[in-house]
């Protein structure tokens, strides 16, 4: 009997090194690739929103062409932000208990409210105020299902008087102003979900929410650069270089801040070398080498920092075509790097035992809810939604109202 059991144990148990608590010895970490995607997607939302508010609140004129695209990007990703969480639950059918009987000391419960607040009270309302006049106009000219959609979105408010339009503008700006702390709160809370776990020295860290917010801003701006360039390419338009250069500038400064705080986190950890430092050091060297040193540090931080920094210094000497490619490359690298960072936090935090005496292995599988195929689907879904949103609300056929801070969301034709 004992031998049989030992055999089973040997076969079932994945590769462990050292001692791990028996309950930790499962072949997969409890939180898999879905929970990696959850902070990633939420971060992209917060970042894209901050990007949009640069236009609304800080009146950064060169960014006007990407204002609406950024807001729609934020919406598309926000609609998918809770899906990975939902799919990973043991009882997804009970998910509304988080909202109905929330436990107020739980960061996860509070996230539900912050999410709802952000979606309903900030993003949807801001979009509505921004688009209302256009909806009214479009509902007059468009027929068929498009006409029905636009008419429905006016919510019956068809007043186009100057006073009403002025109120729209005012409300939009106000919402944008409260949207900035809300975006910080949204992603700060995601960081706090991990930062609040004192049982785990990899996670329990006061800098965690700040690192999450900063990396979210970086990834959100990178996503806006990516989307803007892809959209103009698909539509065979020319990229507005002034807009792109400004995005590149903000991306660079955000990345500098992010890299500085993340470096501070590491320096702090290494210098203090508290309990569990040895096992963390081992993880960084062995288990997370590719995602941490290569993915997060080299591809996600150092290379984009060098490229974007060089472009800040010698922008005028670099031809436009090269500049465009460098911006695009940096954006893609940052998007990969931030995904790697989420992986390092979520998976990395579960690759060592809380006994601090051993490490576990993790092999990502293809199929299943926690497989990488599912991850790809969930990552692709916001882009699919974004395509629909862009077709509906950034259509080239439809004229946009002149009152909004941007003149045109779609870059003008070349020449």
């Amino acid at each position: 009997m004992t031998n049989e059991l030992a055999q089973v144990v040997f076969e079932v148990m994945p590769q462990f090194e050292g001692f791990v608590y028996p309950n930790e010895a499962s072949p997969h970490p409890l939180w898999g690739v879905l929970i990696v995607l959850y902070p990633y997607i939420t971060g992209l939302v917060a970042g894209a929103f901050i990007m949009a508010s640069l236009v609304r609140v800080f009146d950064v004129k060169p960014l006007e062409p990407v204002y609406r695209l950024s807001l729609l990007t934020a919406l598309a990703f926000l609609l998918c932000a809770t899906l990975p969480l939902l799919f990973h639950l043991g009882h997804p059918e009970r998910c509304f208990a988080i909202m109905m009987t929330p436990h107020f000391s739980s960061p996860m419960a509070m996230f539900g409210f912050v999410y709802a607040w952000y979606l309903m009270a900030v993003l949807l309302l801001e979009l509505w105020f921004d688009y209302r006049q256009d909806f009214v106009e479009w509902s007059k000219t468009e027929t068929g299902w498009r006409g029905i959609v636009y008419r429905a979105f006016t919510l019956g408010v068809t007043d186009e008087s100057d006073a009403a339009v002025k109120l729209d503008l005012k409300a939009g700006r106000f919402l944008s102003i409260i949207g900035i702390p809300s975006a910080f709160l949204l992603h700060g809370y995601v960081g706090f979900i991990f930062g609040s776990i004192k049982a785990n020295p990899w996670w329990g860290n006061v800098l965690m929410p700040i690192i999450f917010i900063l990396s979210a801003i970086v990834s959100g701006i990178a996503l806006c650069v990516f989307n803007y360039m892809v959209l103009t390419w698909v539509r065979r338009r020319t990229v507005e270089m002034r807009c792109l250069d400004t995005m590149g500038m903000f991306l660079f400064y955000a990345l500098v801040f992010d890299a500085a705080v993340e470096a501070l986190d590491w320096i702090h950890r290494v210098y203090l070398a508290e309990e569990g430092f040895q096992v963390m050091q081992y993880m960084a060297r062995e288990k997370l080498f590719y995602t941490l040193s290569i993915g997060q540090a080299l591809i996600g931080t150092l290379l984009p920092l060098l490229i974007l920094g060089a472009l800040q210094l010698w922008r005028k000497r670099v031809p436009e075509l090269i500049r465009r490619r460098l911006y695009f490359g940096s954006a893609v690298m940052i998007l990969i790097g931030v995904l790697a960072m989420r992986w390092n936090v979520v998976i990395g935090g579960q690759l060592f035992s809380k006994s601090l005496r051993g490490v576990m292995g993790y092999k990502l599988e293809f199929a299943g809810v926690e497989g990488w195929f599912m991850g790809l689907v969930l990552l692709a879904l916001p882009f699919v939604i974004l395509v629909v949103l862009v077709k509906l609300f950034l259509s080239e056929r439809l004229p946009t109202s002149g009152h909004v801070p941007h003149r045109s969301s779609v870059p003008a034709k070349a020449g």
Partner: protein
Amino acid sequence: MKPPLTRRRVLGKLGAALAGLMTLPVARTVKAAVQKLRVAPGAAKGYDPTQHRWVMAIDVNRCIGCGLCAEACKKENRVPEGPNYFRTWIERYIITQPKPGSAVARGEVLVDSPNGGMNGFPEPPVKRESIQHSFFVPKLCNLCAHSPCAQVCPVGATFDAPDGAVLVDPKYCIGCGFCIQACPYGCRFFNPYTRTADKCSLCYHRITRGLRPACVEVCPTEARLFGDLKNPVADEALQKFYAENRVQALKPHLGTEPRVVYAGLDKEVS
């Protein structure tokens, strides 16, 4: 005549609807809190949790690593089979002699818990002569006074009962796993059958009927002692344990204030 639909009115109505929705969670939270105080899963009828404060004391020097406690727990509580589902388990610590000339007081520390120690332990992986110390440490839910698992549960399915037990309501747990991550002691696991968090309940169905937890009941050496701080019995073993030993808790730096206390722990035990 119906008043015209103005933006002010639309916003007003939206606001009212939102406010209405916001009262729902408050009402349901109050209801759940009242329910929780009165009913706990598995408790006997008429049991009053406010009249008890359960604790467990473990004498590491007495544990022989027979594994009966882990086995009894699995049977009593229908804990899933398999090497990674345990409400209680036993760890073996082997500290070897230092190598000659190494100028350290102790050698290597080897820890294992094959199948949670449920079937006993195999021969030590090192020669007997090279062992400086060897001892067994039974582990279970630490009954934290400030339980991180209950703190992070988003729906309150895991909660601190007034009698000190930290319980999970499997009918309410959404299976997010947050509490499993938050437990510093690795005492929780994800039950693949109920798809909820699972952990030691102190055999709540037994203790609320005046019985002792299964692990305490079967321990042949009385390494595990169980008692009620609100109803102390003068000459019971638990009182003697407190009087005779200097006690320690696991990971005290985390501030969880466990009510499971140990005598004879070593610094290597984590």
